[in-house]
């Protein structure tokens, strides 16, 4: 089945997400769609899978124009999408998730779960996608959940599979396995669209590459003839320097000392298991690991938001195990939360209000029980300027800023005061290259000024670019430690540790 996108334009109000896009997808071929975060890749694919209706242009299948009124139409036409954020119902079983929407039923609308299980088993053996049909989704690791997503699409007999950032949640080894699966699907005659912002993967996996920038296709070509820098320049629009400038490594005293920390998740499962680590002043410690290995709980505990069940945390010689978030803030611990929308910002608050979200209560902003808003606005305007937060005014709502500016706002709030330790969770997730570079610079500046910096990121490239010391977290423990300035370490080695091979 051949699919053609012809002159597709998609607007949201005044915002143009895709402009005049032309793209052909051939059976038995992997089309790599490369673009920065926010370039419009996902929007384009949501148009193709029927979630959005295009503002202009048309979709042709085997030369015939089709119109999708909803995802159901696209599914029936043979187009299936595996979304970046999995579309699985966490409390349903694998079989229930797979059949949802096209359920086999008997009399009185009775669900035929037996048939469903058989079908799941058949597909999983056919394509080598091992999974238990009766397992509940929320108990499965993300890698397995991804297999369920693929089985879901195959169960709908899709001929075109759209995979949106499928490797973001996988270890390097899992990525290799995943590439095998993609290959076998391809050999079975399926057409694959592989969406990513990672250059290495796209070069490895694709038969053909298309690059999208600011909603437009800016280039395409044969992966065998393209190089990494060429692709990067195409994607970003200017030559890219991947390195971050840094002062020579000169660690000083231990600023953060974690001993035997044990944390339990809300559902009672152990998230962090007897973990010990140290961060020195003037050092960047990067924690690598596949998401869901306890990193979030660790960060929350360090920020004072999760009470440890065992262990001791010392900051600059002071025991802070039971200190509240505010006490830690006062001591000079900065915290950049993992999820800016959920935990870092209040969307309906103004830039100024967000700028003092954790410092409104003391001088110079508070006077008695009240807040000196004049002072707040002055200060916020100055800091926004200094941290390149592009906003029409400090009175604009944070929700109206772009993702990059929102994150810069969070970083500005946390780093613009006297800090001694910076804890950053996924500091650049989902950002454009410019914002990433800016935030990396700022984190590095904090280190160069003598702060301890602890970064947790699932982007291995980010960890490797920033860290003086790399720790790998697996199942709530530190399973490996590397010091790149002493002995260079490669991605494969860290990847093996991330997959638990070091234990």
């Amino acid at each position, binding site marked *: 089945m051949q699919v053609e996108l012809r002159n597709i334009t998609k607007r949201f109000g005044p915002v143009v997400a895709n402009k005049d896009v032309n793209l052909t997808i051939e059976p038995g071929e992997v089309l790599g769609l490369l673009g920065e975060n926010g370039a419009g890749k996902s929007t384009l694919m949501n148009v193709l899978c029927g979630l*959005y209706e295009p503002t202009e242009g048309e979709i042709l299948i085997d030369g015939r124009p089709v119109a999708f009124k*909803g*995802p159901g139409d696209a599914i029936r036409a043979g187009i299936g999408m595996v979304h970046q954020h999995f579309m699985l*119902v966490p409390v*349903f079983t694998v079989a229930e998730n797979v059949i*949802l929407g*096209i359920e086999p039923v008997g009399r009185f*609308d009775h*669900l035929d779960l037996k048939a469903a299980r058989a079908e799941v088993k058949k597909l999983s053996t056919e394509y080598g996608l091992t999974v238990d049909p009766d397992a509940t989704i929320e108990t499965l690791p993300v890698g397995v959940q991804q297999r369920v997503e693929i089985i879901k699409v195959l169960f709908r007999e899709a001929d075109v599979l759209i995979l949106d950032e499928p490797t973001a949640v996988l270890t390097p080894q899992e990525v290799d396995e995943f590439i095998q699966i993609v290959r076998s699907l391809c050999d079975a005659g399926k057409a694959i669209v592989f969406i990513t912002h990672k250059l290495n993967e796209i070069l490895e996996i694709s038969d053909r590459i298309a690059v999208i920038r600011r909603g437009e296709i800016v280039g395409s070509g044969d992966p065998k003839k393209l190089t990494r820098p060429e692709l990067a320049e195409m994607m970003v629009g200017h030559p890219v320097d991947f390195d971050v400038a840094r002062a020579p490594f000169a660690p000083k005293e231990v600023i953060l000392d974690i001993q035997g920390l044990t944390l339990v998740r809300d559902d009672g499962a152990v998230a962090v298991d007897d973990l010990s680590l140290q961060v020195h002043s003037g050092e960047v410690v990067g924690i690598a690991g596949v998401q869901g290995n306890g990193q979030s709980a660790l960060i929350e505990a360090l920020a004072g938001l999760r009470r440890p069940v*065992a262990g001791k945390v010392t900051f600059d010689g002071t025991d802070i195990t039971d200190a509240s978030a505010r006490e830690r803030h006062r001591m000079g611990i900065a915290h950049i939360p993992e999820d800016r929308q959920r935990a870092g910002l209040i969307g309906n608050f103004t830039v100024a209000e967000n700028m003092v979200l954790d410092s409104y209560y003391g001088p110079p902003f508070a006077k008695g029980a009240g807040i000196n808003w004049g002072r707040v606005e002055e200060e916020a305007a100055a800091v926004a300027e200094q941290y390149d937060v592009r906003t029409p005014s400090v009175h604009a709502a944070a929700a109206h800023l772009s993702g990059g500016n929102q994150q810069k706002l969070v970083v500005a709030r946390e780093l613009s005061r006297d800090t001694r330790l910076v804890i950053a969770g996924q500091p650049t997730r989902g950002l454009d290259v410019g914002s990433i570079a800016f935030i990396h610079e700022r984190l590095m500046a904090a280190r160069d000024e003598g702060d301890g910096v602890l970064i947790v990121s699932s982007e291995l490239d980010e960890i490797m670019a920033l860290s003086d010391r790399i720790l790998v977290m697996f199942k709530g423990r530190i399973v490996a430690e590397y010091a790149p300035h002493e002995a260079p370490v490669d991605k494969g080695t860290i990847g093996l540790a991330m997959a638990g091979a070091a234990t």
Partner: protein
Amino acid sequence: MTVLLDKARQRQTRITGIILLALGALIAVFLAPDASGVATFRLSRPTDVWPVPNLVVPGGAFIYVASAFLAFFGVRLFLRGGAKWSARLLGIGLIIAVAAFLVWATAGKSFSFTGMLQASLVRAVPIALGGLAGVLSERVAVVNIGIEGMLLAGAFTGALVGSLAGGVAGLAAAVAVGGVFGFVLAALVVTYRMDQIIAGVFINLFVLGLTSYISSQVFQEYRALNNAPVFRAVEIPILSDLPVLGPVLFSQNIFVYGAFILAGLATYYLFHTRHGLRARAVGEHPRAADTLGIDVYRTRYVNVTVAGMVAGFGGAWFTLGSVGRFDEGMTGGRGFIGLAAMIFGRWHPVGALLAALVFGFADSLQQKLALLGTPIPSEFLAMAPYIATIVVVAGVVGRARAPAADGKPYVKE
């Protein structure tokens, strides 16, 4: 690591143990000395086919035995732990405590135990149907505070149409009007994206205003419009002759049977059918459902409308199933207690029904106790179900889980 977790659980078990122990002590100290004479619980009516003798309980002795059991459970839990048993023993302990209380109140007197159980079931009906309506709409993630109003609308319509065209027509109209308000709620929250709680409050206030207005403006003058026939009990042959069970379960009106049948149907629908699976998917992860071609809006409309119909049926109980006439605000908060039953029943139709039976029992217990003339002021007995509701919502909900998308509007892109 598991040791740490067990510690938390152990503490909980210990607290439960202490509670049971304290309950046993309270009963022994305050109730036992007062309970002179025997308590007589009548189980049969004079007209019964197979009469069974009365249950005669010696007051003081029973209470001492009850308190001994409670103390034993309490000590056992405190010393031996065993989280598995904690909830079960607490349940059994509470039943024993209630029984002891009942014996104490009845000591030296007699009353119809069967009659009380029968009344419990009857009183549970509007709560169960309200709770069921709550389950149906919250399973598709629409919080339904408007159940109270839907019950009231059903009660009013039942009385009005019942007076004009007979009970069956009244019942049909009550169900239809309940459905209309369900549809209105769906339209407000789905299509017009109104806050779900505000929309529910609107429905409650609107129905209260409208029914009160018509009641005072029209019914005062034309009394014939508010004089509906009442559905009598339907005796199920043979089964209704069983002692105790017969009068309690098989000699009730269609509302009681209806509540049981609807709870069964709703369970089948939600957990065993295609459309039920889709409905639950919409309640848990609407975007996932949408990407699979399931119409989230339509699913919500249909389920919330059906929920309204169930509430309308439950509302008709107030008039067609009981007194035959409508009074302003006669639902008296039953819809809200229905919501509590839904939460207590963990968003499951059968759970909601069982929870409603507990509330119904508490309600009829309070009535009986007032009749028996206990020294406790009747106002406090009347408060008991509300306090119980708060305790339930505070204590039990922590462990239950609402549908993930509950209360959140879904915005298609």
